[in-house]
C-alpha cells in the first residue's frame, strides 16, 4: 500500500491562480471590441492593417526564437497584444508593407534585443510606432475619414503600395481632431469623440470601448488601475487649469481626454507591466509624469499626438523611479536613500 512514489515540491503548495498566459489572453479579449469597432468604423482597410501587424509580430517572435535556439514564446500571447496595439495606433489606410515592417521592428527592436518578454524597457508597440513615425512621416499622418459608405467593399489603393514605395497622395488626408484644433482651431463635438465617430488612427477612436476594456482588466485584477487614473487625472486637472486661464488658446479638458491616443495609451500601453514601476507609489509618480508630459507635448510641443512620446519617456524613467521609491522595509527606520 502507498508504495507509489510521492512528488516532492517546495512550499507554497498552492498558487494564486493567475498566470502570465491568462493575463495576456485577457488583455487580448479586452482589446478585441476596440479592434472590432475600428473595423466597423474604417472598414476593410483597418481590418487588413490589424491582421498584418498581428501576423507580423507573431512571425517575427517565432522566427527570432527559432534562430536563437529557444522555445517559441508566441503562446504567451504577448506578441498578439503588441500586434494589436501597433495596428490600432496606425492610420487605417497605412500601406501594409509598412505595417508589416512595423511589426518586425516592434518585436525585434522593441522586445527581443532586450532579452524578450520581461526584459524590455519600452512598450514594443510604441517603439515601433516611433520608428515608423520617423521613417514614414507622410504615410503615418495620412488620416482617413470614418464611416465612408463603401468602407466594406473598397480597399484603398494606398494600402497596397509596393514595398519600399511611398503611397501616392490621393487627397484622402483628413485632419484628426487634435491637429484640427492645434493648427486650425476647429473643435470637434465631445460626444462624437467619446463614441468614436470621428477620424483618427485605427483604434484611437472609441474611448468608451477602451474604457470598458480597461475596467474589465482592472476588475479581474490584471491591470494596475493607478496608472490610467494617474495619467487621466493629471491630464484632466492640468488641462482644466489651462482652459480656465484661457479657453481660447487651450482646449477643454474633456476634449483633451478623449482625443488622440490618450485613452488607448493610458489604458493599454502605459499599463504594460514590464515598462512601469513596481511599487504603488512609483506607479502613481509614473502616471503623473506621463500625464504632465502629454499636456506639455500636446500644447507646447510641435506634436499634437504627444501620448506616444510621453509613455516612452515614462518607460525610460521607470527603473529610476523604482530605485528612488523603495518601500521602507518592515521593522526598519526610513534611511537616507542610497543607490
Amino acid at each position, binding site marked *: 500500500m502507498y508504495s507509489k512514489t510521492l512528488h516532492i515540491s517546495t512550499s507554497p503548495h*498552492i*498558487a494564486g491562480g493567475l498566470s502570465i498566459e491568462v493575463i495576456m489572453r485577457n488583455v487580448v479579449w479586452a482589446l478585441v471590441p476596440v479592434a472590432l469597432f475600428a473595423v466597423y468604423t474604417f472598414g476593410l482597410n483597418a481590418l487588413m492593417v490589424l491582421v498584418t501587424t498581428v501576423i507580423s509580430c507573431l512571425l517575427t517572435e517565432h522566427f527570432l526564437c527559432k534562430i536563437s535556439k529557444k522555445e517559441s514564446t508566441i503562446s504567451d500571447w504577448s506578441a498578439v497584444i503588441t500586434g494589436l496595439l501597433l495596428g490600432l495606433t496606425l492610420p487605417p489606410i497605412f500601406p501594409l508593407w509598412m505595417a508589416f515592417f512595423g511589426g518586425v521592428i516592434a518585436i525585434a527592436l522593441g522586445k527581443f534585443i532586450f532579452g524578450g518578454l520581461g526584459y524590455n524597457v519600452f512598450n514594443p508597440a510604441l517603439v515601433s510606432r516611433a520608428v515608423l513615425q520617423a521613417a514614414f512621416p507622410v504615410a503615418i499622418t495620412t488620416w482617413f475619414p470614418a464611416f465612408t459608405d463603401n468602407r466594406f467593399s473598397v480597399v484603398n489603393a494606398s494600402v497596397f503600395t509596393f514595398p519600399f514605395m511611398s503611397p501616392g497622395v490621393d487627397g484622402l488626408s483628413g485632419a484628426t481632431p487634435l491637429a484640427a484644433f492645434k493648427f486650425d482651431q476647429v473643435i470637434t463635438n465631445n460626444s462624437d469623440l467619446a463614441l468614436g465617430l470621428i477620424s483618427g488612427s485605427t483604434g484611437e477612436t472609441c474611448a468608451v470601448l477602451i474604457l470598458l476594456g480597461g475596467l474589465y482588466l482592472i476588475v479581474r485584477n490584471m491591470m494596475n488601475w493607478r496608472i490610467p487614473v494617474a495619467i487621466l487625472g493629471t491630464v484632466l486637472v492640468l488641462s482644466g487649469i489651462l482652459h480656465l486661464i484661457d479657453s481660447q488658446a487651450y482646449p477643454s479638458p474633456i476634449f483633451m481626454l478623449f482625443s488622440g491616443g490618450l485613452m488607448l495609451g493610458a489604458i493599454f500601453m502605459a499599463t504594460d507591466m514590464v515598462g512601469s514601476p513596481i511599487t504603488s507609489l512609483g506607479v502613481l509618480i509614473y502616471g503623473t509624469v506621463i500625464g504632465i508630459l502629454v499636456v506639455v507635448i500636446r500644447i507646447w510641443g510641435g506634436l499634437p499626438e504627444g501620448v506616444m512620446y510621453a509613455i516612452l519617456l515614462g518607460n525610460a524613467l521607470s527603473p529610476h523611479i523604482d530605485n528612488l521609491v523603495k518601500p521602507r522595509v518592515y521593522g526598519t527606520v526610513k534611511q537616507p536613500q542610497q543607490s
Partner: protein
Amino acid sequence: MLNFRTNTFKNGIHPPEHKRETNGLPIRQFPFAPVIILPMVQHIGAPSKIMVVEGQEVVRGQLIAQADGYVSVPMHAPVSGTIRKIVNVPTISGKMAPGIFLEAFPSSTQEVQEGTPVNLESATTEEILQGIQNAGIVGLGGAAFPTHVKLKIPEGKHCEVLIINGIECEPYLTTDHRVMLEQAQDIFTGIRYLLKATGATRVIIGIEANKQDAVDHLEANIPNDLQVSIKVVPVKYPQGSEKMLITSLLDREVPSGGLPIEVHAVVVNVATTAEIGRLLPHGRGIQERVITITGPGIKKKGNYLIPIGTPLRYVLEQVGVDGEISEVYMGGPMMGTAVSNLDISIVKGTSGILAFTEKDVIRPEKIYPCIKCGACVDACPLFLNPSRLGILAKFEAYDQMTEHHLMDCFECGSCSYVCPAHIPLVQYFRLSKSIVRKRQAAAKQTLEYVQ
C-alpha cells in the same frame, strides 16, 4: 501618508481557506501504532540525549531522553512498551537523526506516569520555565522552538503584553480552532503560568474572524479573576506569524533582525498555551498533539490527538487515502514541507498532514521571466521587493540581496503564491539565505583564525 488603523498588518494574501472540511469535527483520540519511532530532533536546538537502552521497558509519560543543554528539550514515552532499537531514523528534512523504536504493549491500560507538579501559586519564574522545559514543550504552531527559551526575558528587557496566538492563518488547518473550542480551561490555566513566567501585565488572545465560535466560547469562559482581552482580526495570511500578529494587535513593528521582546511582547501559540496549562499542574511531559488531517486525498478527514512518534504510514492507513495521492505535506500548504518518505513520524511540530492528488497539485509547466507586475511587492508583509530579490538570486548576487534585506524574509510564501510568472521566489530565497548564512559563518571562522 494617511495611516488608518485597520486591526491588521499591511499586504499579505487571501488564499482559499478550506477550513470547513474539518473545523466542525471534534478532536478524536488516535489509536496507538504498534511501533512508535521517536527521532531525537523534533525541536530547534540540540538533539535530546537518549537515556534508555534497548530492551528496556518504559511506561507512558516516562522520561526517555534528556535535554542536552539550555536550547533543547527532553522527551517522554508516548506509549507504554519496550525499547526495541536505538538507531538512526529518517526525519522530514531528509537527514537521519538518532531515534528510538518503541514497541507498544498490546493491551496495556496506557496510564500516564506523572512527575513533580509545578504549583502555580508558589512556583518562581525560574521554576515555571524549568517546568516548561521539563515537560518537553516546544512551539506547537509549527516552529518547534523550545518554549522556555522564548519565554526567558533577557536582562534589561521587560515584557508588557503576552499575546496568545489563535490566528491559525494557514489554509486547511483547524487544530488551534478545535483546541480553543475544546480546551478553554487548559488555555486559561496556561495563561496564568505564562503571565507569571514573563511578568506581562496584560494578555491578548488574537483570533481571526473566521473562528467566531471560538471567540464566543472563550469569551464566555474567561475566569472571573483573570483579565484577558480577546481581539478579532480580519482573515489574512500570514497573520499568524509573530511579527504580523504584533503589528495587527499592537500596531508596533518588531525591529528588523530583532525579537518581539524589543517591543515588549511575547507571543505564544494557543495550543502550546493549552499544553502548558494541562501538563504543568501534574508534572507531565508532552506525549501527543492535535493534528488536522485533511486535503482532497484523505478519506476520514478530521482533527486527531495523535501520539508523538506515530509513523506517517500508520496514520495514513488509519484515515484512508485516495489511491491517487501524489503529494503529502506536513504542516500547512503555504509553509509546510512535502514528504518523500512515509516512514518518517509525527513530531511535536506537526500541525497538519495534507494529502493532495495529482489533479489538486498545481505544477506550473513553465516559468516565465519576471514581468514586473508588482503582485509580489503588494503581497510581501515585510515590504521587501521579491521581484528584485529574485532577479538578484539568479545572478547569485548575495551581497546585494542582503542589502535588499534578504535575511528579513521569513519564507511565508506570499510572493510565490501570487506570482503569475510562477517564479519559485521563496525557494530562491531559502537557498540564498542558507548560502549567506554559511558564508557568514565561514567569514567569522576566518576572522577568529586570523586573530
